[in-house]
């Protein structure tokens, strides 16, 4: 049984988390014609914006209600209204995604009431634009919670409630935030190869995939359409990826009766098998030859790759579902999880992490717990810990600002698992230490007490 260790430090050292409103904004960025709006001071938006740009290398639509001193004391409803109206006039979005911040949540206003008032008062001006609210104070949660809250809010305020005639080929997919653009594209291809029609919410593959549009657009271009969100209730089945997406899936089920199937991770052969079997069962179609081929490739990758994984100690710091995805992947390849650090203790998935303990903490904790590991696995900020410890770093999650193309990296199903195996094996091969007589000398550590002795074969 894994022990979950709470954070006991007062000073977080090198944060692992990105903020909850950032996660919510990321979800809104997966909607077509959307404009996320942070209800807070201009810095809240500016910091998140810069981080998004550093990761995606794209212009990111993200605005602020620009709370100043006066609004902070007297209340921010006027700023919220002005911001929404300004955005509507200037950018004509199909959806404005309001994410609250620590500043406005500490004041504690009735945001839902404010927005309802604004929509009523400004019905005409706001026609054709959905305004969705996600309550996302920075002082709780992280990307995962923010993303899930935004998707829940989107379904809650846009999807048409009530049991409807189901379209037998239509599948709703609610992916967790940790799926990349490439993952979403791959999922869509996979589902379509069974003759099914997927509606993916949110769909960052249409909006954050790095293309060159033929005109300047100030909102997102591409992503799930508001119309498709409205009609989610006509799907025959919902597929959910990541434990943190259970809440929106349950809401969809409650509103429309659409049942959901939960995949806590999509990495690994057996998980991919389950996913493919489900598609085959829903569609009644046999598994296409191309998919069978991918599976065979993964089998071969497992055979070729496992030499590099066996006995390796892996230290991972990631949000809960991604931690689960990676930890199960590494353990499934014969490695052990030497350190597992995560952002918050709110997720049930933590109980299933295949490690002795999971520390709620930061990259400072990873640096302490990961000493002696063979590989650090976290986002780009882990570069300092990797440097200090002299251990290679595998970059996953958000933000990845010192490598290009992280959004095009595949991490799910047969092909993504195959790619992950190759990536890790290649990191190990790059960092292999040449044998030296000193390191292998059977007498080299004899004078040391037993517990300090370590096997020369333990490292690479």
């Amino acid at each position, binding site marked *: 049984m894994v022990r979950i260790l709470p954070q006991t430090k007062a000073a977080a050292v090198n944060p692992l988390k990105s903020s909850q409103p950032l996660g919510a904004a990321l979800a809104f960025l997966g909607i077509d014609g959307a404009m996320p709006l942070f209800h807070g001071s201009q810095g809240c938006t500016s*910091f998140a914006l810069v981080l998004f740009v550093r990761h995606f290398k794209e212009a990111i639509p993200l605005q602020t209600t620009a*709370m100043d001193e006066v609004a902070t004391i007297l209340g921010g409803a006027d700023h919220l209204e002005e911001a929404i109206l300004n955005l509507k006039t200037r950018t004509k979005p199909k959806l404005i995604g309001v994410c609250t911040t620590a500043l406005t949540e500490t004041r504690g206003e009735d945001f839902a009431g404010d927005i309802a008032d604004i929509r009523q008062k400004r019905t005409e001006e706001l026609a054709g634009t959905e305004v969705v609210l996600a309550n996302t104070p920075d002082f*709780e949660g992280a990307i995962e919670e923010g993303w899930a809250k935004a998707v829940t809010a989107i379904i809650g305020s846009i999807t048409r409630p009530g049991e409807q005639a189901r379209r037998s080929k239509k599948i709703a997919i609610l992916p967790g935030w940790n799926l990349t653009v490439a993952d979403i594209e791959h999922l869509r291809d996979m589902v379509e190869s069974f003759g099914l029609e997927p509606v993916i919410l949110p769909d960052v593959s249409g909006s954050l995939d790095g293309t060159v549009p033929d005109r300047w657009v100030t909102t997102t271009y591409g992503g799930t359409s508001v119309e498709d969100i409205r009609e989610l209730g006509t799907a025959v089945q919902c597929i959910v990826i990541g434990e943190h997406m259970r809440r929106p899936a349950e809401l969809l089920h409650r509103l429309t009766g659409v049942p959901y199937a939960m995949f806590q991770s999509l990495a690994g052969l057996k998980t991919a098998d389950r996913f493919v079997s489900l598609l085959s069962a829903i569609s009644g179609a046999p598994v296409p030859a191309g998919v069978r081929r991918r599976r065979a490739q993964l089998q071969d990758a497992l055979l070729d790759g496992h030499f590099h994984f066996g006995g390796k100690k892996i230290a991972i710091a990631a949000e809960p579902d991604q931690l689960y995805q990676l930890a199960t992947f590494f353990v499934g390849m014969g490695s052990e999880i030497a350190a597992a650090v995560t952002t918050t203790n709110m997720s049930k998935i933590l109980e299933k992490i295949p490690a002795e303990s999971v520390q709620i903490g930061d990259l400072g904790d990873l640096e302490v717990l990961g000493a002696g590991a063979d590989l650090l696995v976290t986002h780009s900020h882990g570069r300092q810990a990797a440097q200090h410890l002299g251990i290679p770093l595998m970059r996953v999650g958000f933000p990845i600002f010192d490598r290009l193309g992280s959004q095009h990296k595949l991490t799910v199903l047969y092909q993504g698992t195959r790619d992950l195996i190759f990536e890790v094996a290649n990191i190990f091969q790059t960092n292999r230490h040449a044998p030296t007589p000193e390191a292998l000398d059977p007498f080299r550590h004899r004078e040391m007490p037993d517990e300090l002795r370590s096997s020369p074969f333990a490292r690479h």
Partner: protein
Amino acid sequence: MSWLNAKIQDLFNEPACEKNRGKDAKARKQGCSKPLTPGAAAGGCAFDGAKIVLQPITDVAHLVHAPLACEGNSWDNRGTASSGPTLWRTSFTTDLTELDVMMGQGERKLFKAIREVKEAYAPPAIFVYSTCVTALIGDDIEAVCKRAAEKFGLPVVPINAPGFVGSKNLGNKLAGEALLDHVIGTAEPDDAGPYDINILGEFNLSGEFWLVKPLFDRLGIRVRASIPGDARYLDVASAHRARATMIVCSTALINLARKMEQRWDIPFFEGSFYGITDTSEALRQISRLLVKKGADPEILGRTEALIAEEEAIAWKKLATYRPGLEGKRVLLNTGGVKSWSVVHALMEIGIEIVGTSVKKSTPEDKERIKKILKDENHMFETMAPRDLYAMLSQRKADIMLSGGRTQFIALKAMTPWLDINQERHQPYAGYDGMVELVRQIDLAIRNPIWRQVREPPPWECQLATGDEPPSTKSETVTVQSFKKFAGTTADDFGEC
């Protein structure tokens, strides 16, 4: 908060600011930060500005008293360089939780955090930043810092610039005030001399100050404190013993320069290391100020000799780029021409300036721009992204020089772009820096990708066939059977 208000009012009343002198008393009181439009605002907050100015002090532990976003979303994001300590790149934040906020545990947590940082890292000083939430819930960071400094025996400096008080620029200035109130003058150097200077507002981006510092070394001038780029706490604490100050990024720390002159009689001038003539002028001015403060006048001659030598080398290097760059059109989108010297050098090798933003320019600046630009229409206050995109799409410029904010407008319009703002990765200061800037412009414009990306795909020339892909929609299978299946799978697949 009233203390903070008084401080801000004092900052708005900056006599050394050229723009401010032109205003009447009422306009001055309103301050220089324009009210922001909700839904149409850009740029960072005061906390952002304060951190930008102070964080490059390399051996200080910077502790941000806030919920996660303020530090968690922004740490380790600046390209300033350190020649030694790396502590400034380690991020410290109290990461306040809901419980901390509700139960009023902020101050206690901050005190504990200061202790942890002190014990684990033993820095020469800790800077503590207040933010929106901690200011709103009334945490008294001044008192906590004072108590911690006494208890732990090291300087703990409160930086009072919560985000909601205003813009990044205001935060820059509040940071300068904090240095003045708590740091500068708190340590006495044992080696003060007649050739000691301070550089204010130099951030050592991509290490570019290291292109300049050897010039001072050659002249026997010692940089006592470069604030903040590559600074050490003790250098800053003893900056009051310098004989002259050069202020580089004038809007950020002008208040600090003026008050240091008032308090310690250190004369200052505004200068720039961007461009050849400006670099020379900066060296000249520093030498002059030092002589005025008692240095041996022979330094003036040595300075001129160095300038002549370095300029000749730089112009010779620049001339090699003329064949490739002559007649190329540059669009400057920087909110104002920050250095005339750069424009001068670009024009010297035959580059044309086809447009520039004059948002932050003075009337004199505008006159000069009119003379440079062939077409007056290309002088703009601000340009909407859409218009900028249109201009670049029509190939009205061969390259845009700007900050990261407009990067993607240029790139999506398939126009070469060069970052000349603080996020850039190239050092552009000094004589060599100017040559590097021109080399980067040359590399950007001549890159072979431009011809490839602008070319339409070959099949675009053929007529679109208009064929629809065959429909995959099929409603033949009964909904019922799915429902049955779906109902069971929710459980079957629940524990993947």
